């Protein structure tokens, strides 16, 4: 598991790559309770002026949560995530979730780990960043994690 003392500013998180399908959007609609038709009904989405069905913003935010918790390990506590959706994304195209460490704040307690601040984002395969975000995650030191 990741320990606070191992982390440096500028560290990049392993990229999480997703391959969303309309089927997944239906599945997410059911699991989240967000049944807005722009996410699975093509004629509805087109009548609303969209090029087709689009990914839920909160699906992309959920993937950012997955990115952060997977990297930080099961004993990390994700304290903050914010995501701003700057563009629409469509199923059938890969979506990449990425992040890097922007600051570290060690806890005052000895061996107490600390708070890691991350810049996180989602981008398509051309590198267009359609989701911009930040996260704060609390890590304890490995010695205390067992």
């Amino acid at each position, binding site marked *: 598991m990741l320990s606070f003392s191992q982390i440096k500013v500028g560290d990049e998180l392993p990229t999480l790559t997703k391959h969303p399908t309309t089927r997944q959007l239906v599945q997410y609609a059911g699991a989240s309770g967000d049944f807005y038709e722009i996410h699975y009904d093509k004629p509805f989405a087109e009548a609303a002026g969209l090029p087709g069905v689009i990914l839920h913003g*909160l699906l992309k935010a959920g*993937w950012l949560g*997955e990115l952060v918790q997977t990297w930080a390990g099961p004993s990390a*506590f994700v304290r903050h*995530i*914010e*995501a701003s959706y700057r563009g629409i994304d469509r199923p059938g195209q890969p979506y990449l979730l990425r992040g890097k460490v922007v600051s570290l704040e060690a806890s005052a307690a000895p061996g107490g780990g600390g708070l890691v601040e991350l810049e996180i984002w989602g981008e398509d395969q051309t590198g267009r960043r359609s989701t911009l975000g930040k996260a704060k995650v609390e890590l304890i030191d490995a010695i205390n994690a067992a």
Partner: protein
Amino acid sequence: MATLEEAVAEGQRYVGTTGPAHSRVIEPGAIRRFVEALGDTNPLYTDPEYARRTRWGGIIAPPTFLCTIQAPLNMPDLGFGRVTLNGGNSYDWYRPVRPGDVITAQSTLVEVRGVQSSSGPLLIMVRAIRYTDQDGRLVAEGRSTGLRRE
């Protein structure tokens, strides 16, 4: 159809109003369906034996799971735009959410404004959402930005 200015003026009358509180018992099956939909295979959310050996001593919900508790405002349609898009979400968590928690979500309208964007006029409505537990303690706070466009 209202103009953007009319919709903003009407919407601003509702700033500070609070929607109904919605409570939900957090069920492990709902957590499982949520992470399956994300495609997140982290056993922390689904495997009790694995989760028991972590700092948490049991399964927790993934960060954005609280979005599954709908917290509508019940305000009237402002007559502007033909599609609502999600502009952004923000969460601050004060403790993890666990199966068996009874979480209550309630939204307050905090901001209504209009902007001219590259894709045309946008009506922006921001909600603040409070999530409290069965003991009345604050578990998390959220902000949700809705965009209404023509």
